[in-house]
């Protein structure tokens, strides 16, 4: 799951190394429009629809948070 997430993140913002960051939002790697793109990519990759109420910056601030959001919304590894 981590590998797929990192791949999708690198497609959205190829200029950043997400594996080196602990907070994508605070460190300026992702903005709200990037999150919209990431949600769309994750929905497609895992054949789910992440609940609109879960589309909050804190749920996409690092790899662990994204994994938790995916699992909460029915993604399987």
């Amino acid at each position, binding site marked *: 799951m981590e590998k797929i997430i990192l791949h999708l993140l690198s497609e*959205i913002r190829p200029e950043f190394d997400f594996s080196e960051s602990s907070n994508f939002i605070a460190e300026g790697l992702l*903005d*709200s*429009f*990037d999150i*919209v*793109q990431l*949600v*769309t990519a994750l929905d497609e990759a895992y054949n789910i*629809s992440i*609940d*609109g*109420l879960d*589309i*909050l*910056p804190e749920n996409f601030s690092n790899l662990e948070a994204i994994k938790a959001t995916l699992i909460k919304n029915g993604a399987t590894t």
Partner: protein
Amino acid sequence: MNLKFRNKKISGILTVLPENEVKFDDEIDNYNFSKSQSMKLKLVMGYDKRRIVIGGTTASDLCVYGMNYLFDQNLLHKDEIDVLILVTQSPDYFMPPTSHVIHGQLDLKQDMICMDINQGCSGYVVGLNQAFMLLEHEEINKVVLLNADVLSPKVSKRDRNSNPIIGDGASITIVENDASGKAIFSAVKVDGKGSEALIIPAGGFRTPSTSETAEPREDDAGNFRALDHLKMKGDDVFNFVQREVPPMIEGLLLKADLDKEDIDYYMFHQPNRFMLRKLADKIGVPYEKMPNNIVENFGNSSGVSIPTTITYNLGDKLLKDSFLICMAGFGTGLNWASLVMNLEKLQFCELINYK
């Protein structure tokens, strides 16, 4: 608040859009973001073409053009209009009411009611509710509901939050009594604590426009806008819509004793493709039943977006068929409102260009 009406119908819907079209691809360089970022966003959000006014065209210009079209086509007669309601956030003037300007230009009779309502993205449902309430009076038989907004001049061309979606337009909806009409259910909600989520901060009496309020400044996300421009807190609006709209629809259908599958179409306000798909997923309806193709073709024209969705997607079908429609508008205020009613055998249902 839940509302229920009987013996009312919509007998015609006309959408009037400016002929002038601008394309997202042509405006990409205005934004302070990489081209590849903007192009990816285009696909997700549905940015493409939009219609905006040029040459100082106002809300009344679009409405008068559409009304004259209906008069010329013998689809509406001046003497039968008992009420003229205009829902707009972009009046021609602070005073007089723009509905009165339209009344004068159309040379309508004096013995009638004429009013402006300041409402945005939920303005179509709010306007319909007002029309239904007025039709409770036995002296009133026909209401002309005008929705019009020309907000594009109030949006910064360098604001990627708002500029790619904004569209201008007007709609004319004829609402009248119908002894055989089925029940209409509606829900209206408001949260004024969110009034700054969608706002034009300067230009009113609180903060009059000055050279300072006209000065564009860069925000944290890299957008440039002035206090004279429309400001949208996109994240707050998105979260508000996802939090409040699905339970409102669920409650509305419960009141109407309907299942979500009973509804033929969910004709919702058109903020962007992403938000509408998330709403459809949350409510549990297929995307085909909730069209999301207005932002990509015409832009989001606030209270005009629902009638535009109906005329563009159903058009002639509504001249001969009957559909059970759920409408929902949500946005500035904050205000959110929904309605479920039958639309059948309309006298007209079309989209025309303002030239």
